[in-house]
C-alpha cells in the first residue's frame, strides 16, 4: 500500500510518502494561514518527484486545527445542550465548570430532562419524550444548528441519547447531533464537555475536511482521506466531520508512532526535540502511553484519550545564557534562521552550541569560534541534565530503556544518557510526525461496567465490543491487536462490579478504504 502522511504543525507542514513500510519521499513546507495552501505546496513538491508519482491508497492528515480553534475561541458555533437524568444531577448543569468567555460564546440553550440510567442499567426515571419534543421544537425555532446530548450512565446504556437524537432528526432534521456516549468515558461532566466541544466545532469540521479534500484533489491525488486521532489511530474523513474532537493532540502522538515505525521498536522512550520544546513520552506496544487523568482543553475538563507527555523547554532554538550556561526555556522559535549566531544573528542558541561542538553542520560555523570551550561543555551538560531528569520522570521502570530521538533538534540528544540503554536515531526522523500519520491504524475502544462476570469473561466481553467498533471504523479484522486492557473493581457496588476499558487497533482495510471514496 502507498500512503501519504501529512502533519500540519504550527510552523511546518510535513508530508511523506510510504510504500509499504518504506519512506519514499519526505518534504517540509511552511504552514500557511489558510492551512490548505501549505498542504497543497507540500503535496505538489511530493508529486514533482518521479518516485512519488503513481497511485496512492490513502492520505492521512494529522492536524491541530480543531484544538487551536477551541484555544483561540475562533470558528465556534452556538450549541444547545440536552442533559437527560433529571431529577438527578440538577444542580450542576451543562457548562457549569467552563471558562466564562467560552461558555458565553457557545452556549445557545440548555434543556434538562428526566431519564438516564443507574449503574446497573435500571432507568433513573422514564425518558421524558414529550419534554424532548418541546426541546426539539424550541431548538428549531431558535435556529440552533448543533446539539450535544448527554445522559447519565450512557456508556452503559445509550438508549436515552439515541431516543433524543431520533426525535431531533424528526423535528429538526438539519441539526447536527453529538451523543456523549460516542465520545465515551464514565464521568458525566467530562463526557458532556467533550460532546459540547464537539458540537461547537461542527461547521469548522465540515469546512476543514472539505478544504483538505480540495487540496488533495487539486494535487491530482485520487485517494480516500483519513484524519489521525489522539491515540495514534485514524478515522475516516466522514467520522472526523462527526467527531472533530477526536483529533485533538494528535501531533505529538504521530511523532511517537512515527519514531516507533522508523526504528522498528515497540517499547522505548521517545524524545521529539523541536525548535521550542521537547516532548518526552513512552511507547508501549508501539503506542504512546495514555494520560489517565482529566485533560483540560481550552480550560474545559475532559477525559480525552491523550498521550501521556512531558513537554520541557528545550529545543534547537532555546536561548543559552552565556553566564550560567542554562539552556531554555525561552526560545527564538520560528526566528531561528534570523536570530541564531550561525545565521548571522546575535542570540546564542542551542543550535549555535551544537554547531560549535561539531554535532551539527548548518549556517556559518566560523561565527561560533568566540564561544568559550567551557561554555559549550556546560551548556551541553545542562541539556543532558534536563533530558536525563525528565526522561527518568516519564519512565515506569527503573531499568535502563532505549531512547528514540526524533525531530529537527534531535542533535541535542547525547549518545549516552543516564537511565538510557542506547540512543536510537533514524532516517527521516525530522518528519516522524508525518510518518506516524501515514502508518496510523484503526482502533476501537470499550469502557463499561460488567457485573456478575469473572474478570476474564468481562475482559473478553469488552474486547468483543472494541473489536466490533474497530471493524466498523475500517480495520482489517485479521490484523486486530489489543493495545490496552485496564480493569478497575468498583468500591461499594454489589455483584463484583468491574469496570473494564480496552482498546484494540488494526491495519486499515483496503476494501474499506476504497469504499470510503465512493
Amino acid at each position, binding site marked *: 500500500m502507498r500512503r501519504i502522511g501529512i502533519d500540519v504543525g504550527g510552523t511546518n507542514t510535513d508530508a511523506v510518502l510510504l510504500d509499504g513500510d518504506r519512506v519514499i519521499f519526505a518534504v517540509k513546507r511552511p504552514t500557511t494561514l489558510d492551512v490548505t495552501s501549505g498542504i497543497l505546496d507540500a503535496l505538489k513538491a511530493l508529486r514533482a518527484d518521479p518516485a512519488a508519482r503513481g497511485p496512492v491508497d490513502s492520505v492521512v492528515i494529522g492536524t491541530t486545527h480543531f484544538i487551536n480553534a477551541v484555544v483561540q475561541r475562533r470558528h465556534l458555533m452556538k450549541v444547545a445542550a440536552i442533559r437527560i437524568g433529571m431529577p438527578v444531577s440538577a*444542580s450542576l448543569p451543562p457548562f457549569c465548570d467552563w471558562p466564562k468567555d467560552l461558555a458565553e460564546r457557545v452556549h445557545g440553550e440548555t434543556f434538562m430532562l428526566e431519564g438516564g440510567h443507574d449503574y446497573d442499567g435500571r432507568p*433513573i426515571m422514564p425518558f421524558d419524550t414529550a419534554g424532548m419534543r418541546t426541546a426539539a421544537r424550541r431548538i428549531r425555532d431558535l435556529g440552533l444548528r448543533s446539539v450535544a446530548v448527554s445522559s447519565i450512565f450512557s456508556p452503559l446504556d445509550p438508549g436515552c441519547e439515541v431516543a433524543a437524537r431520533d426525535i431531533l432528526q424528526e423535528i429538526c432534521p438539519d441539526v447536527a447531533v453529538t451523543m456523549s456516549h460516542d465520545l465515551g468515558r*464514565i464521568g*458525566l461532566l467530562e463526557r458532556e464537555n467533550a460532546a459540547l466541544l464537539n458540537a461547537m466545532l461542527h461547521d469548522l469540521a465540515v469546512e476543514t475536511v472539505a478544504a483538505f479534500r480540495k487540496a488533495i484533489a487539486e494535487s491530482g491525488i485520487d485517494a480516500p482521506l483519513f484524519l489521525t486521532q489522539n491515540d495514534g489511530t485514524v478515522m475516516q474523513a466522514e467520522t472526523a466531520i462527526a467527531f472533530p474532537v477526536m483529533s485533538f493532540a494528535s501531533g505529538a502522538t504521530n511523532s511517537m508512532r512515527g519514531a516507533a515505525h522508523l526504528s522498528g521498536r515497540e517499547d522505548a522512550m521517545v524524545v521529539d526535540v523541536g525548535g521550542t520544546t521537547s516532548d518526552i513520552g513512552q511507547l508501549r506496544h508501539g503506542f504512546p502511553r495514555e494520560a489517565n487523568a482529566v485533560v483540560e482543553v481550552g480550560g474545559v475538563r475532559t477525559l480525552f484519550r491523550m498521550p501521556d507527555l512531558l513537554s520541557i523547554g528545550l529545543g534547537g532554538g532555546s536561548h543559552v545564557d552565556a553566564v550560567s550556561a542554562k539552556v531554555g526555556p525561552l526560545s527564538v522559535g520560528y526566528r531561528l534562521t534570523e536570530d541564531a549566531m550561525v545565521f548571522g544573528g546575535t542570540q546564542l542558541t542551542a543550535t549555535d552550541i551544537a554547531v560549535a561542538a561539531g554535532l551539527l553542520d548548518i549556517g556559518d560555523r566560523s561565527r561560533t569560534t568566540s564561544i568559550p570551550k567551557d561554555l559549550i561543555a556546560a551548556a551541553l551538560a545542562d541539556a543532558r541534565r534536563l533530558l536525563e531528569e525528565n526522561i527518568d520522570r516519564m519512565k*515506569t*521502570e*527503573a531499568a535502563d530503556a532505549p531512547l528514540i530521538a526524533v525531530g529537527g533538534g534531535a542533535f541535542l540528544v547525547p549518545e549516552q544518557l543516564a537511565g538510557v540503554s542506547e540512543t536510537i536515531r533514524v532516517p527521516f526522523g525530522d518528519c516522524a510526525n508525518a510518518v506516524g500519520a501515514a502508518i496510523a491504524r484503526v482502533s476501537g475502544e470499550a469502557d463499561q461496567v460488567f457485573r456478575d462476570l469473572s474478570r476474564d469473561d468481562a475482559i473478553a466481553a469488552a474486547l468483543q465490543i472494541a473489536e466490533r467498533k474497530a471493524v466498523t471504523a475500517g480495520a482489517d479484522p485479521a490484523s486486530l491487536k489489543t493495545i490496552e486492557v485496564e480493569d478497575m*473493581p*468498583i468500591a461499594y457496588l454489589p455483584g463484583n462490579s468491574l469496570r473494564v476499558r480496552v482498546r484494540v487497533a488494526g491495519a486499515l482495510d483496503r476494501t474499506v478504504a476504497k469504499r470510503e471514496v465512493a
Partner: protein
Amino acid sequence: MSAAPLTEITLEDIESLAVGAWILGTGGGGSPYLGLLNLRQLYAQGHRVQLMSPLDLDDDDHVAVVSNMGAPLVGQERLADSRNIARAVEMQQEFGGFKFRAVMSVEIGGGNGTQALMAAAHLGIPVVDADCMGRAFPEAQMTSVAIGGLQPYPCTLYDPRGIEAIVTKVPSWKWMERASRKICVEMGSIASTCKAPRTGREVKDWGIHFTTTAAIRIGGLVREANRLHTDPIAALLASEGGKRLFTGKVVDVARRTTEGFLRGSIAVEGIDADRGSRLDLSFQNEWIVAWREGEAVAMCPDLICVLETLSGHAVGTETVRYGQRVTVVALKAPAVLTSPRGLEFVGPRAFGYDLDFLSVFDERAGAGV
C-alpha cells in the same frame, strides 16, 4: 441559645478546603471537586456559610451529621447536588420534631468534606468546625461517636427520585452500616444521608474539633506554595507537625474488590534520599499500612497521605497510577482514634492486619522512617 460568634467561610476558603479535604481523605472518600462546583454556584447565587466553634454549642443543641454515601464512581455520573443533602437533614428534623442548630460532616476527608457546607448553605444554619473522623474511613462505625458509644440511630437516606428512607433503630453501629448500605445500593449506590443527630454536649465531648479549619489551612498552604513555586509538602509538614515517610515513583498498582471495598497495594520505588529503597502501601479505600522492607512503618489511624511530589495535591487509591512521582507523609491521628477503644474501631486489626498500633509519632517507632 447563646449568641456564639460565627466566622463567614469565604469562597477562597472553600477552594482551599477542597484541596485540604482531599489530602485528609488519605486516598479515599472521593474527590471534593463536585462539591466545590456546587458551592461555587451557591456562592454565586448569594448563599453564604458561617462556621462556628464546637465549643460554642449549647449542651442541648441539635447538630446534624451529614455524609454522602456510596460509590465514588457512581458519583461521577450522578453528580452531587446540594439540595439532596439538605433534604436528608430536613427529614431528620421532621422525624425528630426539632430544629438543628448547626450541621457537621461525618468525615472531613474526601468529597464529604464539602457536604456539610452544601447543606448549611440551603438551610441557613452554620457549620460546626468539627467532624467524626478527622480524615476519611470506609465505614459508618469508624467514627469518634461510635467509639464514644453514642446512639447510632436514626439515620435518614435520600434519593432525588423521591425515595426517602429512615433506619429508625439498630442494635449497633455495624448494623447501621449494613442496613443503610443495602438501602443505598437500591437507591443506585449513592445516597445523601443524615446520621444520628448529636447534642451539643456530645459534639463537645466526642467530636473531633477544628478539622474544617485544619482542612482549609492545609489546602491554603498547598495552594499558596503552588502559586509561589515553593515546596508545598515542606510547608504542610512544618505547619501540621507531620512526618515525611518516603519520596519516590509508583512502580506497581494492584487492586481488587472484596466485600464491596476497593482493596489493594502500591509499591513506591525510592528516589533522591530514598534511592535504593522501596515502600509498599496497603489500602482499603484509604491508605491503611505503609511497609518498608516488610516492616510496618506507619499504619492507621495515623493519616498516611500520598501526595504528588511537585504539586502537593493528594493522590487517591482509585486514581493512583504507574510512574507518578509521589511523596508519602504521615499526619498524627486525633487522640480519640488512638485510645484503646478507638483502636478497636479503626486500628490496624479493624482492617484485618495483625499488628499492634504503633504511631509514627511515637518515639519507639523505627528509626528507618
